[in-house]
């Protein structure tokens, strides 16, 4: 084992957790991510592999499959983001490469993103001040790309529905955290 100590996107050794008026914003670093893009002509084979991996059909546009340990959400035509617990899947990319072989291009995305979980009964009010998405219509398992204060994000509705998972660019973690905290202060 190597002896380098990881840090969280916000810079701490431990994830940041903030609570305001019953809504909690928590940094969630225990997630390995890899993108899966079907090779041209192998779209069906790639979907079959995803189905095998997720125990569920590959997510459709705007949707996620929230299974354990592997989950996935749609990010583009024939393109998905797969996630799994970091502790058990630090080399998720390597694992997926052996599984998908030539049916898909796999790219490590783990540290490309900061992941925040926003949890509480009034999370929708917070999102209304952040992103131009129709949050009322968003059901558990929906996954949309949007923009929060000029930062591109993915927002997933989890189960139960009072929790949202927000992926933003890791280098802007502080700016995104600030934007979400400011919106919480204003909305709650």
């Amino acid at each position, binding site marked *: 084992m190597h002896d380098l100590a*990881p*840090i*969280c996107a916000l810079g701490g050794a431990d994830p940041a957790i903030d609570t305001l008026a019953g809504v909690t914003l928590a940094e969630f670093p225990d997630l390995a991510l890899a993108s899966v893009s079907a090779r*041209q002509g192998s779209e069906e084979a790639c979907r079959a592999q995803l189905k095998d991996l997720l125990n569920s059909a590959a997510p459709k546009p705007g949707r996620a499959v929230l299974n354990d340990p592997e989950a996935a959400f749609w990010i583009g035509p024939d*393109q998905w983001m797969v996630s799994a617990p970091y502790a058990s899947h630090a080399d998720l990319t390597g694992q997926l490469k052996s599984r998908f072989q030539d049916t898909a*291009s796999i790219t490590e995305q783990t540290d490309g993103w900061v992941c925040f979980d926003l949890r509480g009964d009034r999370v929708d009010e917070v999102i209304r001040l952040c992103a131009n998405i129709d949050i009322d219509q968003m059901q558990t398992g929906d996954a949309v790309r949007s923009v929060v204060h000029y930062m591109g994000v993915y927002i997933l509705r989890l189960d139960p529905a009072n929790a949202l998972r927000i992926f933003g660019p890791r280098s*802007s973690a502080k700016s995104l955290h600030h934007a979400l905290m400011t919106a919480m202060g204003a909305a709650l």
Partner: protein
Amino acid sequence: MSQKNRLDGGLIDRSEAFSFRFDNQYYKGHKGDTLASALLANDVRLMGRSFKYHRPRGVMTAGSEEPNAMVELRDGARKEPNTRATTAELFDGLRAESQNRWPSLAFDAMEVNDLLSSFFAAGFYYKTFMWPAAFWEKIYEPIIRRAAGLGSLSTQDDPDGYDKGFLHCDLLIIGGGPAGLAAALTAGESGARVIFADEDFLIGGRLNLESDAIGGMSGAAWAAEMVARLEAMPNVRVMPRTTVMGAFDHGVYGAVERVSDHLKVPQDGKPRQILWRITSKRAILCAGATERPIVFENNDRPGIMQASAIRAYANRWAVTPAQQVAIFTNNDDGHRTASDLMAKGVEVVSVIDTRADAPASSDYDVIAGGVIDQTWGRLGLTQIEVKMPKGGIRRIKCGALGVSGGWNPNVHLTCHQRGRPVWNDTIAAFVPGGTMPMGMTVAGAANGVFSTHGALTSGADAAKGVLSDLGLTAKTPPLPEAEDAPARITPFWHVKTAKRAWVDQQNDVTAKDIKLAHQENFRSVEHLKRYTTLGMATDQGKTSNIAGLAIMAEVAGKSIPEVGTTMFRPPYTPTAMGVFAGRAWGTETRPTRLTPSHRWAEEQGAVFTEAGLWLRAQWFPKPGETHWRESCDREVLQTRKSVGICDVTSLGKIDVQGADAAAFLNMVYCNGFAKLPVGKVRYGLMLREDGIVMDDGTAARLAEDHFVVTTTTGNAVGVYRHMEFVRQCLCPDMDVQLISTTEAWAQFAVAGPNSRALLRKIVDDGFDLSNAAFPFMACAEVTICGGLRARLFRISFSGELAYEIAVPTRYGDALIRRLMDAGKEFDVAPYGLEALNVMRIEKGHATANELNGTTTALNLGMGRMVSKKKDSIGSVLSERPGLNEDDALKLVGLKPVDPENPVPAGAHLMTKGTKVTAANDQGYVTSACYSPNLGHHIALGFLKAGDARLGEVIRLVSPLTGVNHDVEVVSAHFLDPEGERLRA
């Protein structure tokens, strides 16, 4: 006496008394008052001064269309000029100052302008300040600036926050009067997702202002009951204090919610206002109508108001502007005001009706066929003179005059998408017509339906139409009984004998100005507007435009619809700049991107600079270093002597995979990639289709079907977009997949003769770093520090033996600390962007300064890289003759003849002995620095046929900064031209 004009009843909360200050006087009001109603209650009619002539002015309206009663609200940093007293909700401790007056509101020295008014007619500025031109900057502009403007700014930062938010709905209902309420109830009960917005703090529109019963109760009580019902519906969002101020494409609306304007200061963390972007499938505009004035002599005295406003103040706010009130009308609505005032115990001294067939009354005096001839009272109305129908003048004492010229539907939002309203003769007004914004329908008074019954019905009907469009079944709640009086009007716009009759009261435009503009041939209504400034004030002519059009039509011998209206544009009412900025101001105008070593660099005291959105270390000052050059020079020397480390994470990284990955790179880069072996890196030059260089970077082949491409920091987004364009639009049959991985990897350059020795201590045993096994331009996936996945590239920007090492970003902080620790024995130095820049200039490497959007591969000395054996973006057009002339610019090095001289970037190159003219220009300097290795300044630049002019002494000039000395043209490779160091 306190609140001597306060009447009984009304919708104010008398149990809550608020104290407030206007100018130097303290007054009392109640919760539910506006500043205007509270001032009127205290017998204050004079509230402001006009823009040009500083005429004393009072409140004219009871709503957002107010042209006159504008104040500076609050004080200190929160001071807000030009706030309409009619919409400012009263709160305890409110402070307001009148504006555009000196030294006081009652005595204003600038009132002298009024005496000189014959000089200030339409076009005054254009005529007066034209000549001589030299006077403009020194004399005219300062005079105009001093005299211009209304309120003054605090000049301090606004301490409050503003938010932007996003809402989505099936149906947006704009306006909460009877039509809006009926529409909201119908749509809400049918299950549609409804947003119901009204600019007022009390929803109900004119139901709150009229005395008519509705369904057996007062209009206000019914409105309150309906609002409560709507608020209980989970599918309806009721938004009071929310002005829908713009209709944009495809059902998108802008709305400003005044969250905290009615509070002394916003609650902790809460915004003052929110700008909502509302995405709607349908919208119903129920914005009501605005009563318009009749223009007559001295019609601007405090106390002369819209008749409907006097009625509104009496019914809703239990206030009368004076104890004796007269009415001047051309329609039946003026008589309603008279009846309502009588019912409230206010004395109605006379109703002057321009119509000979005016309805008679047993309750009050009616002068049928009379007009106002003159008014009296300097700071407030005291008397009117009526020209009697059979001749003669009658003088009537009164403190207020209500004027009713008929009603204009508030069509503004229907016109925000090119729409033009159409004329309706029955109500003598423009109504919505023509092209409407997508998805919008109009109901109630905004559509010219003026009775309460008509408004309720048309609102419900509009909602039913929307529901059927949306595929929802309409449930129609029963509508209450309400008045259904027809609108009876005989148009009458202005009293023709008037000399100084005010059309636009805020901008001081008179009927005479409009005639003069016509005389001077300003025939288009848009020209009239700009020449006279009619309708160009903060109220955008809501009350005044129509009278202006009518007068223009009359002098032009046209009808009003022939003259037409000017264009209506957002915002509907004045909107604070702060709310457009939202949270994006100061350092928050854009996100900040931090490199993985940021925290560590901060600990070292690094000085940061912005590159793209990234904060990058510029240099790392050591104790005792006082100038950036000291730090920079040391970092350069230490790196070239031993080893230096730089965080290069911000360079864009794009993962390119697929069977056709190499073919794809062949297409996007002008040089070839097909034959690049696995485990090797190649420099790539990317052209735009027009042959100009777009970007450069490296592509590392990690596997037969897998490359990692780098871009410059600033172009990462654009290059990725371009590569997706090539992939999807030009090469859709290639098997290639792209995704950005910029942030996923922390990447450090380790450069200098000891870089291999340093990395030897980090990279795990079993990986051969020797020059033979891992030569220049090699790449590999390795493990470090006992098993961490890493990527190693032997590439060099500094020109030294150098590597770039990448690890998952979460380990970047640990890696920089480990590298610095391991490098102690080599005297390792972290280096910043300044040292990086010096080292690349010493090596003649191009960056954004050279890839500046005008340069070609040929200019950069890389013309032969453009492969002609394959298709690639930009390859064909790079052959354009204009880009390939014999004297094309070439990248050269420059060094000063006198070593003390700098070679500043931006300076131009002139052949010795020629005059300094643009025609003689030979090129320019792009990048410059002091080279601590060479001991003098050096620079890169472009010079005509520069490659053939090495050794030439040339003149360097910058007339702007006084540079004028000789430099020698040399090779751009100042250091180690053979590249022996980087291959060591």
